[in-house]
């Protein structure tokens, strides 16, 4: 049955956003972050206003609030949101409470980056043991130098029988790293989520036979200074990341970085070291209140980002910032201007 949007009965309805679809206001435009579908929709700021400032009003009251000057447009907006499954009409909006945006996570450390180059002499086995004892679920190993297959296999075997649930590897190309061998290695190690081989020559894995977990790049990742990219590719719109970004830093919260010289930091690109891995325990560093300070630098406090509609789905960077003297300045590698809405 066709709904007549002007019927008095219909106007008694309320428009309700699904709890997982959360509007976020920016300086020039807004988003609806869909935390269930890992996506977002750009919306005009006026629609944000309708959804937030006039929340709790029936559709009739809402149209009245704008003196019936924009009835057609408002009804079209609501129709658009219903069609896209961001919300629905209800006579009982009180039955659909909002999502609690508190971030909960049981792990004292949720992720770690461990860097190596050909001069590194820190002991991966010892690091993994320490991270596992802290139940760290995810680790990224970044090798800026080439590793033969046997060494890569040996590194991954260190994760067996540990509490670490996911491992990502980035390694420079070595002729020994054949796509089929890597694919088999990834399949035999369910913890391996991704192996990214950089600086690969042309022609390697052109047929894509290495499988989804293996990525060959022709470009070179020379050092930790390549990190800190801010791009929509890295946006994550899910409950865990969105809620974390409300109160914590979306990159550094509960992160451990061990740089290529074995220095324990918030991330390998940060300048401040909290001790050498050979002499300092990761646990002690992670409990240091000074170390934890960076965990609390929220997007809502960061210049420019605080006015950006992507602030709760964007991966922050505190190592490369526009003004190194100001720890709350915008990530240097972000080209987005939220005031103009252009990248």
């Amino acid at each position, binding site marked *: 049955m066709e709904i007549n949007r002007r019927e008095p009965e219909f106007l008694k309805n309320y428009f309700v956003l699904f709890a997982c679809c959360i509007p976020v206001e920016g300086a020039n435009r807004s988003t609806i972050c869909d935390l269930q579908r890992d996506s977002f929709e750009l919306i005009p700021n006026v629609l944000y206003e309708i959804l937030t400032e006039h929340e709790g009003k029936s559709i009739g009251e809402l149209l009245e609030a704008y003196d019936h000057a924009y009835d057609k447009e408002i009804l079209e907006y609501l129709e658009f949101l219903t069609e896209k499954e961001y919300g629905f009409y209800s006579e009982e909006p009180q039955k659909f409470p909002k999502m609690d945006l508190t971030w909960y996570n049981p792990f004292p450390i949720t992720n770690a980056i461990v860097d190596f180059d050909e001069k590194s002499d820190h002991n991966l086995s010892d690091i993994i043991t320490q991270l596992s004892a802290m139940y760290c679920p995810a680790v990224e190993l970044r090798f800026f130098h080439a590793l033969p297959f046997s060494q890569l296999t040996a590194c991954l075997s260190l994760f067996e029988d540990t509490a670490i649930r996911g491992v990502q590897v980035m390694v420079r190309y070595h002729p020994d790293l054949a796509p089929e061998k890597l694919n088999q290695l990834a399949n035999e190690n369910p913890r391996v989520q991704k192996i990214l081989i950089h600086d690969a020559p042309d022609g390697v894995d052109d047929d894509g036979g290495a499988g989804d977990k293996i990525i060959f790049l022709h470009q070179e990742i020379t050092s930790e200074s*390549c990190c800190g990219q801010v791009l929509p590719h890295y946006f994550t719109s899910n409950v865990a990341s969105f809620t974390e970004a409300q109160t914590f830093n979306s990159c550094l919260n509960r992160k451990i970085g061990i740089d290529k010289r074995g220095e324990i930091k918030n991330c390998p690109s940060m300048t401040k070291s909290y001790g050498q891995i050979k002499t300092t325990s990761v646990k002690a560093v992670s409990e240091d209140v000074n170390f934890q300070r960076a965990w609390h630098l929220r997007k809502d406090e960061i210049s420019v980002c605080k006015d950006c509609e992507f602030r709760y789905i964007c991966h922050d960077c505190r190592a490369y910032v526009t003004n190194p003297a100001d720890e709350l300045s915008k990530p240097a590698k972000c080209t987005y201007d939220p005031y103009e809405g252009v990248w």
Partner: protein
Amino acid sequence: MKKEKFLDTIPPRQRKLYSLNLLMAQLKELKQQHAAEESEQDGALSPCRSVPYNTKLFFTYGLYKPISTTLNESIWKSIEENRNS
């Protein structure tokens, strides 16, 4: 007839990666209709996805966000070109 347990289908080395509940779960035969659908796809199971909601969050071992962000725009472009080619 004794039903096969999930435990019996995975190598002993990997068992500790799974919860006890899952290990003890008994495997059921697929219904005829499902089996027919699968054989149409040459037995290949498509990646996890919830069609009505287009949900992609089924990673078993994934962190909910990127750990580091080392790939720049041009690298992403070439990854996408490779995927599409």
